[in-house]
């Protein structure tokens, strides 16, 4: 049995690894929620890498419809062809499988990532219930049923922009990625910058968590901002002491003017 234990570039907490393995064993979609920047999307890549499976990503946008993931009937092409006297009676030519269809058709077991499902319309998840349950769908135009050859591992991420419907939730295994604590964050930083000095790392993390604790900050910096910040500090070779005292390059951490102001007031520098 395949078993996920994190990977060299992705540090998974114990409960996250358990959730991934539970979802795989029970063959249910794994729904991942969490603050932005806690590595929800990265998780699917890490699982795919660790298990040596192909990753199929379906990015959801506000205009995405459930149908897009199954197949698209390219009527425009058909119309175009018909104008030039080509035979258009074979509809198969104009059916293009979407990401879900692609995952079902694959000969090998794949990981299917449905990224940011909450971006789509409120009804979107409900439209996928049958397909995710049965791992098959029907194409009326060609009277074909596309059925998964190998049941894909489905990972779904959500930023909680919208509430997901109950019926959908009931079918998922749920995991919430809490913001990592300092210990865990040190491991994550280590995984990204293996050659980072220990003192430096500790110092940066201390400053980082101190900033996160400031109550009046509106958008708290997340993991990805921390990693960018470390990169910036390393490239410019800022001295260790100044990191916590002055918070250089705070613009990398903070994305809002108000927050930058709060920060400079707190730390009393320009």
């Amino acid at each position, binding site marked *: 049995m395949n078993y996920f234990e994190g990977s060299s570039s992705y540090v998974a907490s114990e409960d996250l690894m358990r959730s991934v393995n539970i979802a795989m064993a029970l063959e249910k979609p794994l729904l991942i*929620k969490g603050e932005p920047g806690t590595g929800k999307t990265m998780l699917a890549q890490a699982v795919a890498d660790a298990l040596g499976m192909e990753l199929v990503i379906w990015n959801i946008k506000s205009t995405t419809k459930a149908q897009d993931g199954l197949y698209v009937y390219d*009527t425009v092409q058909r119309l175009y062809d018909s104008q030039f006297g080509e035979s258009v009676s074979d509809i198969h030519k104009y059916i293009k499988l979407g990401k879900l269809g692609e995952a079902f058709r694959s000969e090998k077991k794949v990981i299917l990532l449905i990224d940011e499902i909450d971006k789509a319309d409120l009804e979107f998840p409900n439209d996928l219930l049958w397909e995710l349950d049965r791992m098959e769908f029907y194409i009326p135009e060609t009277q074909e049923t596309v059925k998964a050859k190998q049941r894909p591992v489905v990972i779904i991420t959500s930023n909680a922009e919208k509430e997901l419907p109950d019926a959908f939730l009931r079918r998922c295994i749920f995991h919430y990625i809490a913001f990592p604590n300092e210990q865990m964050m040190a491991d994550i930083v280590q995984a990204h910058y293996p050659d980072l000095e220990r003192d430096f790392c500790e110092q940066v993390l201390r400053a980082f968590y101190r900033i996160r604790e400031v109550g009046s900050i509106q958008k708290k910096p997340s993991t990805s901002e921390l990693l960018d910040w470390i990169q910036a500090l390393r490239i410019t070779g800022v001295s260790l002491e100044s990191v916590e005292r002055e918070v250089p390059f705070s613009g990398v951490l903070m994305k809002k003017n108000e927050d930058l102001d709060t920060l400079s007031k707190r730390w009393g520098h320009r």
Partner: protein
Amino acid sequence: MFYDFLELLRTYGLKVSVNEWLTLLEGLKQDLHGDSLLGFYYLARAVLVKSEADFDRFDAAFARYFKGIESIKELPKELEDWLAQPITQRPYDKDEVDKKFGGMPLEEIMRQFEERMKEQHEIHNGGSYWIGTGGTSMFGHGGYNPNGIRIGGTSRNRSAVQIASERKFRDYREDSVLELRQFQIAFRRLRQFSADMLGPKDVLDVDATIQETCDHAGQLNLMFTRPRRNTVKVLLLFDSGGSMDEYASLCTTLFQAANKSNQFQDLKVYYFHNCFYDYLYTDPFCLRSAQIPTEWVLQNLPQDYKVIVVGDAYMSPYELLSPGGCIDYYFNNEEPGITWIRKFTKRYQKMVWLNPIPEDFWSGSYYRSTIDTVMREVPMFPLSVQGLERSLKALMAAHGQR
């Protein structure tokens, strides 16, 4: 199998369905919990709980069902000092330790713990018996024990009941957190796409056009459809100043959420002080220069506007019930506030009142009698994430279901 645990979860307000329960049993059959309580904790949580807002309820229920842990809260001072000098984990044979301690019932663990607390008189680290660090004893931290309870220190290897009784997801409970984003999410409920309703078909339907054209052997045949657009119009009325000051940041958050959601066909915001009379104001300071006749608003905003009033409805009864009761001394209203409220409810089918005062305090006291009076006129909801959701549901409900 542990059906009573399911019952307990349901009494804690978790809506666990039978399907989810069967999934959990399936997981147990496949041994996904690895025969440990910790494994069971994660398995049950992943399968049964579908929102981080419910994690806390789950933890509370879990801790109660597998009870016993919450009684250790206070440790003797010296014990804490010993535990504050940890050593790193000594090498150990996991299987041996598991065999020695595995499967011990919680009551037994707790009994032994209390025994040790009485017996122990000095620091013990790296061992398997005393309370200490870095060893394989059931008590202490920085060590390994399959059944152990962490005492002091920070977590590394932890047990299930411990994690559950920490209740670290308390902050995620919906009834305690209020944030801009959550308000915004709530406001998205206020959607009504005109595609569902009557309206001119004035947008080209590409798919249907192509289908029709193909069906007619390439002869162009244009098809039209109705545009999908949110048709909800909102009128927000804020009580401003006075007793509302302490709720200022809450009201600002609500205002921003409504303003930023940027999805309504129209959003109008006016302010009033305590109750509305002949004039409303276009800014929160309610100065005379910013006033606008209430009748104008009533006449110019059609009746399909959805009205949300934000206010504590907390005022002297005469402000609401008597002519001339307006709190502004120089202002003499001929009709009492209640009449103006009724003018609104008569004009606008969909109207709700959001009250920042917690629901429990709405009635009972003489000073708050005005809340009761207002409640009889307008459906009132608490100004919280859940209250907002309920009120918006009421706004979206079919006509006649106020």
